[in-house]
């Protein structure tokens, strides 16, 4: 486990509401530099909301989010992206009328180092070869799995210090799920910090160092992946939400 004492991302008793719905009721968590943290939980537990609040799409009602020492709670998304957080959102949210190339170019729109961008694009092709084949195709006509890879690649183009991933395996064929998680493992080795939301708990815990289990808007359980893998407490934490 990486040694950095101060977490890269620190969330403290975060609360988010949509009208009368309390989506998050005081969530606290840490993500340290170089770490992969999984965020799991039943449908509607508030996983996506947590990510959306970190990247600025939802506003916290109370609580704080600190990234690399700076408080970012409530700041607009573009500022947060510039600080180094990239978000691959639920439902992919690609620009369907733009080509694969243009989507990737926009992924890097906060960067100014042109030469490096080209090099990074090449590296992404090694990770996701299909994107090279579909370079000029409109993103909207890609199949589901292809879109998922593009969404990931687009987020990576920003060269983030923290990558937020919302269900990267959703709608993806098993073989490709493998490939995507292999790619994520490769990124982890390269030192990319990730906060991963995933329904496939087995895969998630394989990749992650630590995990948090959310249940109806609050953290029900947390611990290292190894601990959680071996206990059935995760299942229990889930069931609590299912009733």
């Amino acid at each position: 486990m990486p040694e950095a004492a101060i977490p890269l991302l620190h969330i403290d008793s975060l609360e988010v509401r949509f009208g009368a719905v309390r989506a998050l009721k005081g969530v606290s968590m840490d993500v340290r530099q170089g770490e992969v943290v999984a965020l799991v939980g039943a449908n509607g537990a508030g996983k996506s909301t947590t990510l959306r609040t970190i990247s600025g799409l939802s506003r916290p009602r109370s609580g704080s989010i600190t990234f690399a020492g700076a408080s970012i709670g409530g700041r607009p998304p573009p500022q947060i992206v510039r600080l180094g957080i990239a978000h691959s959102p639920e439902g992919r949210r690609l620009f369907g009328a733009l080509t694969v190339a243009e989507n990737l170019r926009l992924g890097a729109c906060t960067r100014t180092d042109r030469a490096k961008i080209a090099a990074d694009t090449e590296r992404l092709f090694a990770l996701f070869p299909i994107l090279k084949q579909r370079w000029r195709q409109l993103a909207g006509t890609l199949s589901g799995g292809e879109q998922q890879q593009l969404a990931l690649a687009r987020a990576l183009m920003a060269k983030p210090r923290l990558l937020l991933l919302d269900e990267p395996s959703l709608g993806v064929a098993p073989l490709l799920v493998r490939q995507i998680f292999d790619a994520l493992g490769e990124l982890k080795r390269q030192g990319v910090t990730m906060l991963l939301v995933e329904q496939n708990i087995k895969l998630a815990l394989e990749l992650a160092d630590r995990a948090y289990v959310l249940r109806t808007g609050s953290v029900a359980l947390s611990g290292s992946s190894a601990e959680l893998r071996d206990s059935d407490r995760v299942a229990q934490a889930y069931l609590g939400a299912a009733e």
Partner: protein
Amino acid sequence: MRTRGLTKAFRGLVALKDHAIELREREIMGVIGPNGSGKSTFFNLITGFSKPNAGQIEFRGRSIIGLRTERIVSLGIARTFQGSRLFPSLTVEDNVLAAAQLRHPVGPLDSVLRTARYRTRVDKAEAIAERLLDLMGLTAQAGRLASQLPYGDQRRLEIARALATEPALLLLDEPAAGLDSNETTALVELIRKIRDLFGVTVVVVEHDMDLIMAVCERIQVLATGEVICVGTPEQVRNDPRVREAYLGHA
């Protein structure tokens, strides 16, 4: 239902090539394949959302090619969509009723005059909706707007809505996507129950192998638009071509 030589190309890209399938009454058939292998395209062709370049689709002995979607639905084919497509501004109950009305139609004139026919048909449709909501465990949510439902409930509502058209053939496009493992397990039971209760033939497109293996009696595997294998779950799991194209050597 059966198809023969079904082919669809999008400007050069052949999404489905020479596809053939034959469904038996009351069976649960799985269709799997890598992303972009043409599974959704297959559904779109059957339900009339796009027109095939070549091939035949026969449903209960008659060709349904060229018919409009609503006509095909009224013949008895219903579907759900990959990523749900509910009527967001209608309530849960109204979503189902909008579909249930297909078999118990009331025209504008009946509506304005509130004829006796209006009353009986509306009652019938409501009875169906009630039964389906109950079956799907959505009764408590009946009055909420569809857009406010949690994701899992939305997926179930979509199935309920499709069933409300009283189909003989039900096409489910990735019903488990985005569901957590408990809900996925529940879905297996649900699909079986639907088949038993309503006597429908079900085709499931899904990437969740656990679900497919558990629920399907036969499975067809597509890759780049072509059928590479058909068989029981056991046969398919052990087929080397399927392992290479789809499952990986896990």
